[in-house]
């Protein structure tokens, strides 16, 4: 059952359209990640889902009821959700009091509050900071308090906005640990916004890619990750090799795609003559100095055009008659003594190639 559903949701700020035609169905109990670059409209969409703002157009349904306009309905529905902001704001009081706020506003009894708050502080691993002034906490600790605060009211839906955007790697993993724990323990629906693709992959059951105010693709992490529906999504999820071609041959589940004269083999259902893209993730391509006689069905000789350092990896552009972008570890590059101009062989399995109908 869809706990939140939107119909043609749109939003405007100062005449500028920031969100349009959003149709989402968030299923009860799922973890849905909303990913997209900064400024795509993730926060706006989350705020609309949390009923914090009125949409410029479209409708929002919560638990099957239209809650778009009625103030009373919105307040009721909002009470069943919790929102954790990107830079959460804590009140000038102890951690305990911060977390207890929501319950106190609901006029819960003392003992009940104490039990719930202590429980939730345990879940977010902040029990020993119980009496500290919340304003003195670090970024990661503040986030955890915010999560705790959001959980005390036992919401049906937890909305998280860029939870780890401003944190160091240690804090990020701590928080993801906490999140995983929450997701595992409680029957809670989670909608999280993030620009970190891999975080979405790690935690979510479904991903929605949003760019420029529009939802471009919704699907399982795997689908989105390997079968992007269009170029923008493809680029965002890191599928850097988008090769235009035509299916030339087909034989029991295996096709050969003609890309600029070269034949790329892939596992696919497309028929001969269909115009397709061959999508290959850069990390699935291996570079060798001599022709690698391996199981890889695709092997192409080429020349290294460009090399660039990306974190601990090297991004190499190889010209094989068609451009290929490859990601190798620094180590491999050093071992093979790769330099621009060098002749190499790029190989990848047929299973690494995804095919998708041409969108142009």
């Amino acid at each position: 059952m869809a706990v939140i559903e939107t119909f043609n949701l749109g939003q405007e700020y100062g005449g500028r359209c920031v969100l349009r035609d959003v149709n989402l169905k968030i299923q009860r109990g799922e973890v849905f990640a909303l990913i997209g670059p900064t400024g795509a409209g993730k926060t706006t969409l989350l705020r609309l889902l949390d009923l914090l703002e009125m949409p410029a157009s479209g409708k929002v349904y919560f638990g099957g009821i239209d809650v778009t306009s009625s103030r009373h309905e919105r307040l009721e529905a909002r009470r069943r959700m919790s929102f954790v902001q990107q830079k959460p704001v804590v009140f000038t009081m102890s951690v305990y009091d911060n977390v207890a706020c929501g319950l106190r506003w609901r006029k819960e009894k003392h003992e009940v509050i104490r039990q719930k708050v202590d429980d939730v502080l345990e879940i977010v691993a902040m029990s020993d900071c119980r009496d500290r002034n919340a304003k003195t906490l670090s970024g990661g600790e503040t986030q955890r308090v915010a999560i705790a605060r959001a959980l005390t009211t036992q919401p049906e839906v937890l909305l998280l906005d860029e939870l780890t955007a401003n944190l160091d790697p240690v804090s990020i993993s701590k928080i993801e640990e906490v999140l995983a724990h929450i997701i595992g323990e409680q029957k809670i629906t989670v909608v999280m916004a993030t620009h970190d693709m891999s975080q979405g992959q790690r935690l979510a059951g479904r991903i929605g890619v949003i760019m420029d105010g529009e939802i471009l693709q919704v699907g399982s992490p795997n689908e989105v990750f390997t079968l992007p529906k269009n170029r923008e999504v493809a680029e965002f999820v890191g599928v850097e090799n988008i090769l235009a071609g035509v299916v030339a041959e087909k034989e029991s589940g295996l096709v050969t795609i003609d890309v600029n004269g070269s034949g790329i083999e892939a596992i696919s259902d497309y028929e001969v003559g269909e115009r397709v893209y061959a999508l290959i993730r850069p990390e699935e391509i291996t570079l060798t100095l001599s022709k690698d006689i391996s199981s890889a069905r695709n092997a192409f000789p080429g020349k290294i055009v460009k090399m660039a350092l990306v974190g601990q990896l090297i991004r190499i552009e190889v010209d094989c008659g068609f451009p290929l972008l490859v990601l190798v570890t620094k180590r491999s590059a050093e071992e093979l003594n790769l330099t621009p101009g060098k002749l190499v062989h790029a190989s990848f399995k047929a299973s690494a190639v995804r095919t998708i109908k041409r969108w142009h």
Partner: protein
Amino acid sequence: MDELWQGLVKAAQLIVSFDPEVVEITRRSLAISATSCSIVTLISIPLGSLIHFSRFPGKRGLVSVIQTLFSLPTVAVGLLVFVLFSRAGPLGELDIIFTPAVMVIGQVILVMPLILGLIISTLRGVDKAISETAISLGASRLQAAVITLKEARYAVVTAVIMGFGRALSEVGLALMVGGNIKGFTRTLTTAISLETSKGDIELALALGIILLLIALVINITLNRLQQR
């Protein structure tokens, strides 16, 4: 310089000996100002919150007007209140002219814009995220307003103390509507005015020094609070 020194000496004498008349007018000054400020604060906190959190046409204009009234000339307010409450005036039936009660009313009018305006300012200074967070946690609008006020609590107290300082040190209003009656409506400021015009500079200086000491205590308290 000699005069100033004499004044200081006299001030010390009056304070140390707890001169009854000085004690009386000091107490009256403090009482009248404290009363008027309490009334203004009790009204301004909810009213200021209401104005800040509501949206209505002309809101900016209203806040502008309030801020303009910050430094209402005390004699102008004094004249207005006198004309209103004089036995010949519209509210003359109440028969409170030349009593401390009408002085309190006058000070309330004088100080209300200041404290109200400052409270609205302090609320504006609180990150909007506070009330939004509260609302997203299920707070009603009233509860969200209360927690915003709590976040601004030191600034609010500062505003009240500033209003108190203004009320305490004004003389035009107190003189006009109180009549500076010995033993009944005489305050530190009206006494200073009288003694100066009568030529008892020494006494006037002494009273002035006492008033300054009180102002000093107020300002020190203000500073401590602002440092929090």
